[in-house]
Structure formats: structure tokens, C-alpha cells
């Protein structure tokens, strides 16, 4: 079956521009997570959705970062006024209701020039 998909796979943008990153989770997965992975680093938690609500936004680095999820499915992570330190791979994962295994998408590599 189809896995988690993310788009775009690569995004190069100029400092100060806004970007939108998209995540399509596995059908039926109620939980959705966004992580950020900087070069050679671990996975940094950003935000978590249960259905369309985000009970935990504690990992968002600043108010330039926001995310939404519609229809209990697709999620969009928006970064406003991008900075060079935002450059990283942004990974999305989804999980069935038992919250056991997280299935990761291939990620979006964001480069801010």
C-alpha cells in the first residue's frame, strides 16, 4: 500500500520568503508528527496532530513556524520569513491509533540561501 508521502522533495528558497511543506499520511492513521533533522543530527520534534487538532506544539522553534491538518489527513507545515538556520530535512510521520509504530515519509530537504 501507499506510504507517507511528502512534497516537495527538495526546496531551495531565499532568506525571508515563506515556504509550505506538505505531508500525506497513510490512510487511516490518526496521528501525524513533524520532525526536523539538521545535517548529521538527530530528529527534533516539532508538532503532533491527533485528528485535526494539535495538542502539542511545544517543539515549534518560533512563531514563524505553523502547521495545520485538514480532514484528518493532509498536513501542511508553513515557515514564514525563512532564515538560513531553517535549512534542514523536514520529516513527517504518521501512526495508527495504537501509537506504536511511526511510519516516516521521505522528507523535504529545505535549503535557505
Amino acid at each position, binding site marked *: 500500500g501507499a506510504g507517507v508521502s511528502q512534497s516537495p522533495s527538495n526546496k531551495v528558497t531565499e532568506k525571508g520568503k515563506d515556504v509550505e511543506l506538505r505531508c500525506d499520511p497513510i490512510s487511516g492513521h490518526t*496521528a501525524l508528527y513533524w520532525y526536523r533533522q539538521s545535517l548529521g543530527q538527530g530528529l527534533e520534534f516539532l508538532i503532533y496532530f491527533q485528528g485535526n487538532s494539535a495538542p502539542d506544539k511545544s517543539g515549534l522553534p518560533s512563531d514563524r513556524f505553523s502547521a495545520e491538518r485538514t480532514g484528518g489527513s493532509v498536513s501542511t507545515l508553513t515557515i514564514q520569513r525563512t532564515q538560513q538556520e531553517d535549512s534542514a530535512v523536514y520529516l513527517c510521520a504518521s501512526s495508527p491509533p495504537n501509537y506504536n509504530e511511526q511510519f*516516516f515519509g521521505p522528507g523535504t530537504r529545505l535549503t535557505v540561501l
Partner: protein
Amino acid sequence: QQPVQSPQAVILREGEDAVINCSSSKALYSVHWYRQKHGEAPVFLMILLKGGEQKGHEKISASFNEKKQQSSLYLTASQLSYSGTYFCGTELVGSGNTGKLIFGQGTTLQVKP
């Protein structure tokens, strides 16, 4: 709050064994283990739950010491395909069984012929 993994890196010959450790300063509800190959998304290996339940792959085993808030991943008779970066993800007691994971910095494993 981020768990600490050790060692940071290990090099093995095929057939040798390895142990990767994950230690947290917080009370843990569960520990998840993932493997990430270069340029790919992390892939689930195992989950260890408070109370002793384990779910994962046959050829990989792990332990979870609830009192010490530590987990160890045991890789036996290593194969070339085991190469990659291993991450532990910890779910804290009190997080509400949301699947929100705080990941360690990773352990890079290289298996040579």
C-alpha cells in the same frame, strides 16, 4: 530531556555483535528504536513498553530497564545491511500515550565485510 545514546559510532565486521545504549533522565513510558540509512527515512525496529511488552523484528532484540530509564539494542551476528544510524525515541510518562517521541542524537553503525 533528550536521551543520550552511546556509543556515538561503532565499526564492526560481519558476524560480530553490537550493543547500543539509550539513557534518559526522565521517567519513560516507552522506548522506540529506529534505523536510518543514508539519505533515507527512519524505519521502525522495535518498541519497548513500560511493563515489559515488546514489539519488533525477529533478529533484533532490546531491553528496557524502567528503574534506570535505560534501554539497550542488541544486534547479533551483524550483516552488511545493519549499517546505518540508530536512533532511540523516548516517550515520557505523563505524555498521555500520544506517541510523541524525543529522539537521541543517534549511533552510527558501520558493518564491514
